């Protein structure tokens, strides 16, 4: 591995002209047939700590969710580090081990060093997820960790160490997803947390498999269990937050079972909207009204239900512009024997389910899917799909008639002209790994310009999938923390990449804007669009490197 990308630093200058986008069409990448290859380097890289989640037999649903992870540059040295959330290991009806969250520093030589204790981020609550942001505006990424119990917001001191914020935001109970974003447009980052089931540790410890499934007894839920409400916490500055869930219009009125959450500008009005994946209930779609409040529009947007009008078992999600119309489309992962769903964004909060048209149904029907991404993994100019898979019932291994297993292979689907082709079986040893994978975070861990994948596994160490695919094109990385979206035009082709906060499953990916450009020799125009609407337009931007935009 090498140090971070050579960076070109550019000022952010306001300009009035943006990208002119034509009619939507699913676009083909430049490669005739994609070739993808991933190798698991976790063990040789030193990322070996297991992440726990209850007992091996999983008698309570709390033990099935797994944990999230994040890739972030916590020490500002230009390369991406890794933060793994850890749960607890149970034996019988007692706690055998309180797993400690881990921070691994990227050493820049292909290895990672465990710096958890030195950095002060070794929370040992029963962890669920993690969100990354900058709540104090000092430029150093902070960490919001959700737990079964008290949540923790770690403020990055900027010297390689963190401190837990006293009286930070949190949900008392089983909180799941966390995102940090400027919800009310006041310039600082607020916190939104999802929550799943309302249960107690006593209930978890005493649980027995009660539900009949494939002739076996498995854990109960989520049907029959009470949901726990999601929470929104407004940043008041000075390390203070207040619960503003109801007045912001973000009350979890259905008490649905919420997992993955992402903030992304779905209607191109330059504020961040919210999408919440709900297990076994309609997903929430919140339109940011631009005044610190949100309006839930899911049921009539077309993005809360599948094409048949059915609520699915939402777990994780990804956003990205699949059809090059400048609007982010959505991918939501679901349960075993149900497909992951792609919602094409038609604008004005109208979505249509295009899962079948994009040939995603077959590959995603049997796995139980969690973390996911829409990323250009082969650099051919279009967005591919990776999905982390694993069942919640270990008993699946005892029920061959179910046609599934607890540990599952992950999925890698290449975008070939708007149709996804399953390349998992031919994508190298990294896709042969069999684990109950849940969390997924994406970033260029080795600084070579393509995107690598970090995957968390239940009761096992993480998988680090180094992208060794032969590049099918050029790339560009844009670091622009204040940007809502970045557009690139090269000849007749154009790309838009959006600010995406959170997403996947209880995880956080590198926030930079990554472009695969296919056989592009030069960029004609690059436009950075800020939340306030200011645009910075640049001609002749270089490719094969990182561009850094900073506010003056």
């Amino acid at each position, binding site marked *: 591995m090498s140090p971070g990308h050579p960076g070109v630093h550019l000022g952010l200058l306001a300009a009035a002209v943006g990208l002119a986008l034509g009619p939507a069409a699913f676009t083909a990448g430049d490669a005739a047939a994609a070739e993808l290859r991933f190798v698991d380097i976790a063990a040789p890289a030193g990322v070996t700590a297991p992440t726990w989640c209850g007992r091996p037999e999983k008698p309570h649903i709390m033990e099935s969710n797994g944990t999230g992870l994040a890739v972030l540059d916590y020490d500002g040295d230009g390369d991406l580090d890794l933060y793994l959330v850890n749960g607890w290991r149970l034996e019988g009806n007692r706690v055998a081990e309180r797993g400690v969250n881990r921070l691994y520093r990227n050493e820049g030589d292909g290895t990672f060093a465990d710096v958890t204790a030195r950095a002060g981020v070794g929370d040992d609550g029963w962890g669920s997820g993690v969100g990354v942001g900058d709540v104090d505006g000092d430029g150093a990424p902070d960490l919001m960790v959700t737990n079964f119990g008290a949540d923790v917001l770690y403020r990055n001191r900027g010297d390689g160490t963190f401190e837990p914020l006293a009286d930070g935001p949190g949900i008392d109970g089983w909180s799941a997803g966390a995102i940090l974003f400027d919800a009310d447009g006041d310039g600082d980052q607020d916190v939104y947390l999802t929550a799943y089931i309302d249960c107690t540790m006593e209930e978890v410890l005493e649980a027995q498999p009660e539900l009949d499934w494939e002739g076996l007894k498995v854990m109960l839920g989520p*049907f*029959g*269990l*009470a*949901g726990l409400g999601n929470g929104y916490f407004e940043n008041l500055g000075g390390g203070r937050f207040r619960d503003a869930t109801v007045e912001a219009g973000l009350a979890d*009125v*259905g*008490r*649905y079972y919420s997992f993955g959450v992402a903030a992304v500008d779905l209607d191109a009005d330059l504020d961040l909207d919210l999408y919440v994946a709900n297990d076994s*209930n*309609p997903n*929430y779609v919140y339109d940011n009204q631009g005044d610190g409040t949100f309006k*839930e*529009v*899911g*049921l*009539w947007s*077309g993005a809360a*239900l599948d*094409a*048949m*009008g*059915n*609520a699915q078992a939402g777990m994780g999600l990804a956003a990205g512009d699949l059809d090059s119309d400048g609007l982010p489309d959505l991918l939501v992962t679901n349960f075993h024997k149900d497909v992951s769903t792609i919602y094409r964004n*038609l604008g*004005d909060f*109208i979505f*249509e389910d295009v899962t079948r048209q994009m040939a995603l149904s077959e590959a995603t029907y049997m796995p139980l899917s969690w973390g996911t991404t829409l990323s250009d993994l082969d650099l051919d100019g279009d967005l591919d799909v990776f999905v982390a898979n694993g069942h919640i019932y270990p008993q699946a291994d005892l029920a061959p008639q179910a046609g599934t297993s607890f540990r599952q292979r992950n999925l890698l689907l290449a975008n070939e002209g708007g149709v996804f082709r399953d390349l998992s079986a031919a994508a190298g040893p990294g896709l042969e790994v069999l684990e109950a994978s849940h969390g997924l975070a994406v970033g260029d861990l080795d600084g070579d310009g393509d995107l690598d994948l970090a995957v968390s596994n239940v009761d096992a160490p993480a998988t680090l999938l180094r992208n060794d695919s032969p590049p099918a094109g050029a790339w560009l990385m844009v670091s622009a923390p204040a940007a809502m979206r970045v557009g690139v035009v090269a000849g007749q082709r154009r790309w838009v990449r959006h600010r995406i906060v959170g997403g996947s499953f209880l995880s956080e990916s590198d926030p930079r804007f990554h472009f695969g450009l296919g056989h592009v020799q030069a960029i004609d125009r690059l436009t950075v669009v800020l939340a306030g609407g200011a645009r910075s337009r640049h001609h002749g931007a270089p490719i094969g490197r990182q561009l850094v935009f900073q506010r003056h």
Partner: protein
Amino acid sequence: MKAKISVLIVAAALLALPAAAQETPQSIVTAYDALADTILSVRDAELGFVAAMLDGHLHAAKTLMSKGDVEGAAAQMALFANEGDNNIGGVRKRLLEGGHHFNADGEEQGIYEPGYVIVTREAKQALLEASKELRLAAGDVERLAAWDKFATMAKALLGGAAKTLGAG
């Protein structure tokens, strides 16, 4: 608690019987008969409540259409299709968690979604499609077609509910 009290009342009444009595006292039969009326009318009450709610969404959609508020009308159409918003969804979820399924047989046969009272799966899909078609309509002709599709189906569903209530 209420159930426990009822059991105690009945038990007390039975214990007070003379030893030779071979029949349930008429007062107990009458009370149980009245309770049966109440139990059975709850089902009608639920059907009537949901029908009234859907009628409200239909009326709101019609009003908004007449005012040219296509977005608002489409939203009301979607709420009709979903038998209410997420607040109602939360209530429905609570009823399901308590074991109450209005159309248990219909759910078993795949006709109804869990907890749904009037809108079938097939109707829901068509109603949602009409709502989307209305939002995407390019002109008045398409808008009217989407509206007609929705209104016809909505009225048929409400008519069916009214018929059931009338028969009861």
